[in-house]
């Protein structure tokens, strides 16, 4: 099995850097420097994942994503210097699966690539059977009976308290819990100076399941109100 990744960017150094990064992770890397070239390669080679820049000559990234989506179902990660929310939404709505802003964190990028590939390859068939005791949220899957959280199909190792928090939040996707409530329901004690305690645990959980714990996608703080598990639009 060859995890062949196509990297498209008009900046050759960046392509090269990503190439080095991903080859270090054990992927085979194909390189293209504009949209058309990328489409050519996609037509001739079996590619499992595409990393594509937005601003490129001849055919820009988003158009290329649309063209790719006409034929292929492979994961596409858009890589762009445009870091605005609107840019991200645009990219995702064009058919991309993920959006990484430049300058990227190499480790995060590698993690995202891995995550996307894993879900595409491993979990593609699991998603077919929709069990009642499973809660899916983006790349997370929580099995309520086992009380186990899976990220990209792999179990996340959580402590008992962390599992309780995850259990609470996964059962109430999108609902905001004040720290006091989390404390009361998890520790089953009256809340006193709960903010710090809860925050510490949240931070630890984040480090375990977020790709970039500094910019969490799932376990979010609602500032001034509480904490929540963000409900992801895309359920693969």
């Amino acid at each position, binding site marked *: 099995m060859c995890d062949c990744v196509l990297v498209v960017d008009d900046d050759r150094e960046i392509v090269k850097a990503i190439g080095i990064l991903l080859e270090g992770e054990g992927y085979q890397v194909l390189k293209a420097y504009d949209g058309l070239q990328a489409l050519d390669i996609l037509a001739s080679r079996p590619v499992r994942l595409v990393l594509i820049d937005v601003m490129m000559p001849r055919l820009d990234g988003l158009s290329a994503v649309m063209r790719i989506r006409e034929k292929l179902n492979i994961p596409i990660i858009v890589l762009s210097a445009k870091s605005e929310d609107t840019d991200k939404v645009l990219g995702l709505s064009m058919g991309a699966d993920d959006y990484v802003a430049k*300058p990227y964190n*190499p480790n995060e990028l590698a993690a995202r690539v891995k995550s996307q590939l894993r879900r595409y390859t491993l979990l593609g068939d699991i998603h077919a059977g929709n069990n009642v005791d499973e809660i899916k949220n983006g790349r997370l899957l929580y099995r309520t009976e086992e009380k186990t959280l899976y990220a990209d199909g792999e179990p996340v190792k959580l402590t008992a308290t962390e599992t309780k928090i995850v259990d609470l939040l996964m059962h109430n996707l999108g609902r905001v819990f004040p720290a006091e409530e989390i404390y009361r329901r998890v520790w089953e004690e009256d809340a006193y100076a709960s903010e710090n305690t809860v*925050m*510490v645990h949240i931070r630890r959980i984040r480090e375990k399941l977020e790709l970039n714990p500094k910019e969490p996608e799932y376990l979010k703080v609602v500032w001034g109100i509480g904490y929540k598990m963000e409900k992801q639009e895309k359920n693969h």
Partner: protein
Amino acid sequence: MDTKWKNRKKIISFTAFFVGASLTLLSVVELLQKWPGGNPVDYLKQAQQDDYQLSRRFRSYIGDRLATFLAMSTNSFADEYYGDYYYDNYYSYGYMDSQEALPPQLWEERLLAVQEEGAVSAVEGWDTGWENYLNRAWEYDMEDWENYSSPDRPLTEEQKEELIQKYEEWKKDVAQKYHESIKADQNLLYAILHDGELLYSNSDLLKTDGSMETPEGYNFFLRYENGQVRISKDGAELDVYGDGFYRADSQWYVPGYRNFQADEEMMKSVVCIAVAEEPILYSEISYGQSGYRQLDNALYWMWNNSRERQMGLRRDLCCLAAGMALLFLSLLNRKSLREAIRSLAGLQGKIWLELRVLFFFALILFLLVSYVRSDYGYGLWQELIWQYECGAEYGYLTEQLLSDLPACLWLTVFWGAWLAVNDFRYNKKPWKNSLARKLYAAFTAKELRLPLARKAAHRSTAAFALAGVYVLLMLSEALLLGHQRGLGARWSFTVLVLLETGGFFLAEYLLCLKNMETARDMEALSRRVEDIRNGNFDTKDCTVPHREDGTPSLAGHDLEQIMAQLEDIRCGMARAVDDQMKSERMKVELIANVSHDIKTPLTSIISYVQFLKEEEGLPEHVRDYVKILDEKSQRLKNMVQDVFAVSKAASGELPMHMEELDFGKLLRQTLADMGEQIEHSPVTFRTEIPDIPVMILADGQRMYRVFQNLFQNALQYSLAGSRVYVTLRRDGNLAVASVKNASQSELAEDMNFAERFTRGDQSRTDGGSGLGLSIAQSFTEACGGKFGLETNADLFVVTISFVTLEI
């Protein structure tokens, strides 16, 4: 107490002045009006004299009486006799009306006398009465008259004889009648004897025996005998003849002077006359004729008038004295009087001039009318009309008028004039406070420069004046209508009133229509202003607003010009805002492009630095270089991101997600979020955050960034081992969060730390972008909060305040 007394003194002295001056004036006017002319001392002496019998009039009356009685005694005709008879009865009403015609021969004789002797004196003084009488004689006794007198038929001797006979009889008859008519008046007792025969007497009390004794109640006695007159008064005999010659200044006009002797017949007569000391009024009632008839009563009236005159004079003199005394009294307190007068002037000044003048003239008019309407002034009324009709040649009338006008009228004129003078003296410009001036001030358009304002002012004036004219017209027509009787006149009046009302309402309608138009325009104008204030510039149509049918909505209106100017402003502002927006957008775009352009190479740098870091076997110094490269590239990355955020926030482009959140919780969460960092730092955090929720409206994510930056800042620049104080307090409806820390380096006093790229230490060797505070400020302000920064020596205080939401 003091001022009270002062005020009282003012009032007293002014009252004294007022009453004193009034009394003085009144009495002076009365005295002058009654003054018959001549020696004023004699005039004033009358006040003391209380005996009417000492008056000249009395003496002449007694003289006349004596002459009449003598004529009666000798049955001779005398002018005086006739005149008395005539006059007495003329003035005692009713005698004339009974129309006792005089015998025609009398007229003839009269006429003859007039024709032959040209004796004007015979008719002098009573010409109108004579003519009257003559006319009546012609009217009633035409037949008789024609019998005796006719120019072409002279009288025969027989007829003359007959006439004389008749005349003698008639004279006796008249004398008898005269006696009958006067005898009842017991104020004057008389007895007339001739040849020792008592002819006429009206009282038994009168003794004719030669003694000068008077009956009780009578103090004046006159006895004529042998052509000499003796008079005793109050028991003492008077000297009648003086040196014996009658002169113009002789007191008694009676026969007996050496140059005024009685004739033979008269020598035989004896006349006694007694006069009452205090006469009383006698009257007689005669049924079937004209009711009451007052008798002669001349003596009573003489006495009465004399007494009244005297009393009046005394009263006037008393008034004068009292008035002078009061005036003197008030002048003693001149100071308070002057103050009183000044305050009176102050009061006057407060009343509209028109009212002042109107009041004055109304008072005079009222007095005049009431005077003229009264019986007292009836004659004057007639005289006025007469003068009006006949022209002004009756010059004496003016004097008459002046002397007849009631004294209170003079008083009013005096006080009116005094008030006017007072007004002018103390109120610099008495006309200033007048209705006309007030109206002028209210409606003047003098200070208005704007055509619109002038127009509006003129319109208001027109509306007001129109209403005034209409009301005046209606009033005058109502008054006039009251005097109209005919149906035609009433109809034409009604039509006139209807026309005027119609015209009035039409004019008012037009004026008000214009006002309404302006009001609507004002509405449009203020809406437009509000729009502009709210930033709604509606940039597309940059011309004057049009109606739906395409006509300019304000063409020809008052506000057209202003609207056009406002449109200019609006267009200008729209353009300016547009330009600004464009430039802001360009700025943001520029920054976005620049940061994008920077990010691309930065990506490569960061990537390869990463590889370098992972490279094994590098010499130590190269590792150091790589480390520096890593740090700086990370910082550059942060900086690019921050610059972008700040510029977006500053241009208002930053999308905001406002929600209600607990300020305290936000702070606690942020602190918890940075817990690790704080733990590893050399400073400690002291927090004072209330447990109860402090709800504000803000974007949580942005505010997190704000406090993250602030805490970061505190961690980075605080003196090692010092404390950072984070507090949240409620101040009224504000929630104020503050972060205080002691700076490790000295703070420049005049430095604006929130300025972009400003840092406490100028060397910039640490990892911050220098945008932390700038971001904090931009984000706070974008959320609607207030960002405050204060430095006090080494103390660095940031306060962030939000309006709390009342739960």
